[in-house]
């Protein structure tokens, strides 16, 4: 594994998407900022959405924002990691690269976007008077576990995407459903009892709920759930690593 290579790829990933435009890499951050703007200003001020049990006008906007920022990092990492071998075919078929660590650059590049948008979000929390509590120090931990989960899942699916190209589209559709099955736009409490029961098996709920806990409810997140998520991610990673070992030769042949 070559750290220098992965960092270089991550850097390129951020710059190349908008290469040729005047603002260049800045566009990577403009999109999330527009999201934050819409969620907080439009939802809170114009639509008057309220978070049950909170008096702040901004509460719902912040609830939505904290969930969406985390979800975007997660879903982009999963979907892009899953298709990386096909997307970067022109490199992989020409130069020798370690395929198992190659997709790490996506996780890193998504993390940079995450950190920047989180920074803006924190700034908004402060100037709006909503405030932050020391529990937000849990954010890095939640994020690390979340990205480990995203990477393992993406890597695992990615191996199969080489063989079954339809998976690429299926992954996108599943992520859409997953987004709406996770309390990001709505709150957990409005769910019917039977859905609440299944919700504990939704790994995305674990980390999204953790962000909500620290930002909105100002509570220590459910560390036990996070530990389970960590173990689950680790298991998937092992599985993926094992499958990759078995299939690496075929993956290279089929790309």
């Amino acid at each position: 594994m070559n750290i220098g290579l992965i960092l270089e790829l991550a850097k390129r990933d951020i710059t190349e998407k908008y290469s040729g435009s005047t603002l260049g890499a800045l566009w990577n951050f403009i999109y999330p900022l527009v999201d934050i703007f819409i969620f907080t200003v439009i939802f809170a001020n114009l639509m008057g959405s309220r978070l049950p049990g909170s008096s702040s006008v901004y509460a719902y906007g912040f609830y939505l924002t904290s969930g969406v920022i985390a979800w975007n990092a997660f879903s982009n990492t999963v979907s892009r990691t899953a298709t990386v071998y096909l997307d970067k075919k022109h490199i992989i078929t020409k130069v020798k690269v370690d395929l198992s660590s190659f997709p790490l650059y996506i996780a890193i590049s998504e993390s940079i976007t995450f950190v920047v948008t989180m920074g803006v979000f924190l700034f908004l929390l402060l100037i709006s008077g909503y405030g932050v509590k020391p529990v937000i120090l849990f954010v890095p931990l939640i994020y690390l576990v979340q990205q480990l989960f995203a990477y393992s899942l993406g890597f695992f699916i990615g191996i199969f995407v080489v063989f079954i190209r339809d998976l690429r589209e299926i992954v996108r559709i599943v992520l859409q459903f997953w987004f709406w099955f996770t309390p990001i736009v709505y709150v957990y409490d409005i769910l019917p009892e039977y859905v609440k029961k299944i919700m504990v098996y939704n790994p995305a709920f674990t980390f999204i709920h953790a962000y909500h806990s620290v930002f909105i409810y100002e509570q220590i997140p459910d560390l036990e759930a996070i530990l389970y998520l960590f173990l689950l991610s680790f298991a998937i990673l092992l599985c993926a690593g094992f499958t990759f070992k078995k299939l690496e030769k075929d993956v290279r042949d089929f790309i």
Partner: protein
Amino acid sequence: MIKVSGVSKTFKSYHSPADRLKEKIFRKKYHREITALQNVSFEVKEGKTLGVVGQNGAGKSTLLKILSGVLLPDEGSIKVDGKITGLLELGTGFDHELTGLENIFMNGTFLGMDKDEIERKKDDIINFTELGEFIYDPIKTYSSGMLMRLAFSIAMHAEPKCFLVDEALSVGDAYFQQKCMRKILEFKNDGGSIIFVSHDMNAVKTICDSAILLDHGHIISSGDPKDIIDYYHGIILSKSHMGNTEVIVNEVIDDHTGHKNPSASTGEVKLLSFKVLNSKNEEILHIESEQVVKVIYQVKALKELSDPHFGLHVRNNLGLSVFETNTYCSGIKTFTLKKGQVAELTWEFLFSLSAGDYSFSVGVANKGYGRDAFEEYLLMAHDIEVLKVIPNSNAIVYSGVFNMKPKIKIQERLGKE
């Protein structure tokens, strides 16, 4: 040094990639196997160059891909005491949106250089490419020659121990090709190993110390580049018969040199005799330059040949073609040869060649068409005789290939200030 031992690679051909998974899961066969390489072993010592020749589909590209690490072999191992880089196809792993300079960093990182190293070598890399200001342009605007220059320069500056070269080099213009060749030789003299894959047989002969011939994934012959190329030509000959006639490739031992001469024939003609004579009709092994040389050979037809033609090929000691023609190309009328009939060919020419060893090869073909092609190639016998040419003391002293007998004039003129 690079050592390849017992490398085999089979590709499985599936209707769709998903069948590969089905196969893993249901343990049922869903594929057709294509053997790309079978038990390939060779070694290239430091400072040596190995040529790899073979027809399309012989396994050359697969071998290069395995050597460069893009594909993994089914069996066997590759040992290199350092890095392998090369010029494989165009723009190995380039990003076409990025500028030339950015690609130096990107590609350099892929080839295992770190940032400081690239920063240090950046100027050398750019200077070698002679791209000038273009280095700041996105490489999608580059011509294929420019891409080649960039790719070559980066790959060379990555300080490999083994360098792979394929046809990509031929994209460059003559000037740059020579520049690359000089760099390759420099690399070789510094102890680098080179693997050279090409269809340019003259290049293989000049550059390589040894060669291997690949056919359907097997090494069918290895050794001196000249012999390998003759063998290769034999295979081409058999191919031109679309497999209708069996071609026998046999090795004839030359009486004079003890050298093995591969020749290929369809068994439809037989070379009965071959003589090299001087103007007094004496058989000779050497001759002074500028003298008349006669070559007489007899060919027996083993089946009826409607429009047979006979060729003669003179090559120097490097195996490079000095002169080559045939009765068809020279506009000589021939006659139909009945089965069992013998034709005797006499070639007479002034041997104004520079001193050295020259070999003669004979070719026989049937039914000429177009400018210089035949429907059937029947015989290709290489290096049947070797003739040593010694300098003629009466001729001018010159170097090169042959005496062009220049008329040189020198006159005094009034110069204008």
